[in-house]
């Protein structure tokens, strides 16, 4: 009950500070540009090919869909972190949290409420943006990716993990340090993912193995890139799966175990953020 009050407050703050509006407008701008770009490329493909037209349109659509979802994944992650990074540390530092905590409220209800508020926001954002990209591709050329819902769920999981880390950091650190922490982890995962991917092309099997190990370790530290790779795998066309390499996916896509690990990771970080906030002086 108190968590719902806090969640609504969180939502209202984002609306008041015009964060929602800015995210929505920029999102729409992205969708418009994406839609135009997509439209003209498909126009080009339609003119250029005869027999294999449908096949080419599907391949191009799939590639552009993945490119669009890649950007959506990034934007959702950014939006999640930027909006939540100072919610705890900021209110602790300003003292605004004090009148809230001095109410008949349990500390976990505050953390859970903020989590819910931001999670609701990122869910709407992801549905709007991811759904928008998929809808553009569908309505323009009647193309749907193999497993769009799975991909969205994985992207959601990625953002939810970032949100939880951001709350854990906010319960322990200053806003600035928290920002450095979350983006740092995100960056580590990003680099690790690319090392793994590029390493896979190396002829030397030893280099190959080392790159893979780096990828696995960074995924364990921060699973966001692995989740994206798996999401990309879910939407890539069967042909790409057969070829095995695209700019967005690895030859070895993350397994179900990695997804399970990510869910556990999310829960652990969430529980830690509650614990940290419940035990600290304000």
């Amino acid at each position, binding site marked *: 009950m108190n968590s719902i*009050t806090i969640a609504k*407050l969180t939502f209202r703050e984002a609306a008041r500070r015009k964060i929602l509006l800015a995210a929505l407008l920029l999102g729409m701008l992205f969708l418009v540009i994406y839609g135009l770009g997509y439209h003209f490329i498909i126009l080009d493909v339609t003119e250029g090919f005869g027999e294999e037209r449908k096949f080419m349109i599907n391949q191009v659509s799939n590639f552009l869909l993945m490119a669009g979802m890649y950007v959506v994944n990034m934007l959702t992650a950014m939006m999640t972190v930027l909006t939540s990074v100072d919610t705890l540390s900021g209110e602790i530092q300003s003292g605004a949290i004090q*009148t809230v905590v*001095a*109410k008949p409220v349990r500390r976990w209800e505050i953390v859970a409420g903020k989590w819910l508020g931001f999670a609701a926001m990122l869910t709407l954002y992801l549905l709007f943006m991811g759904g928008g990209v998929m809808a553009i591709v569908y309505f323009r050329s009647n193309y749907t990716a193999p497993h769009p819902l799975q991909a969205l769920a994985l992207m959601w999981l990625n953002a939810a993990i970032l949100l939880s880390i951001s709350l854990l950091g906010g319960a322990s650190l200053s806003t600035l340090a928290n920002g450095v922490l979350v983006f740092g982890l995100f960056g580590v995962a990003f680099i690790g993912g690319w090392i793994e991917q590029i390493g896979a092309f190396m002829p030397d099997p030893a280099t190959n193995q080392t790159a893979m190990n780096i990828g696995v370790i960074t995924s364990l530290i921060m699973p966001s890139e692995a989740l994206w790779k798996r999401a990309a795998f879910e939407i890539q066309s069967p042909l790409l799966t057969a070829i095995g390499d695209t700019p967005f996916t690895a030859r070895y896509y993350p397994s179900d175990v990695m997804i399970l690990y990510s869910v556990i990771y999310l829960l652990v970080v969430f529980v830690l953020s509650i614990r940290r906030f419940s035990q600290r*002086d304000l």
Partner: protein
Amino acid sequence: MSQSAFAIETRNLRKVFGDKVAVSNLTLSVERGEVFGFLGPNGAGKTTSVKMLLNLVFPSGGEGYLFGQPLNDPSIRSRVGFLPEHFRFHDWLRGDEFLQLHADLYRLPRLQARRRIGELLELVGLTAHASKKLREYSKGMLQRIGLAQALLNQPELVILDEPTSGLDPVGRRLVRDIIRDLRQRGVAVFINSHLLSEVEITCDRVAFIKHGEVIRVSLL
């Protein structure tokens, strides 16, 4: 309802930050319906003490009770109102929204909350400013809406940390009147202050605190 005779009771309450002793040994009891002054110079440990009472800061030692209930029992805070020292609130809220938020946190029923908010805005003289954002409030207005926030639940104990600091004479007068009114209705009030003149006027009893320890408690 607890049967304890005391609104506040602490025994050897202590708080240490690193190697800095903020409150060394606090033992006191405040009766129900009593207006109690907690007087001491800056840095004496007043704010840390009330933060321990409100479960904002966790004691390093000792124990404390509000109405006979341990400090870490959240339900006890439904009978307490609190105005913090540096009144910083969610300043993007409007005055009435701010009070509604805190009424929700006290879990007041909607209708009751609306009536109570109206009364309190009237009491602190902010009815005309209810739909302004807190960001646009002056320091004195913030202090007054903070005071209204502390009275939403018709508390049996009100804890005020330096309630008149930064207020003009009219604001001070208002705070004094409210405290008098609370006393008449049998509400216990705990006032932190570094000004003797302030507690002298309003309080029944006063504790002098220095270096985190009560030096003396006297009747006024």
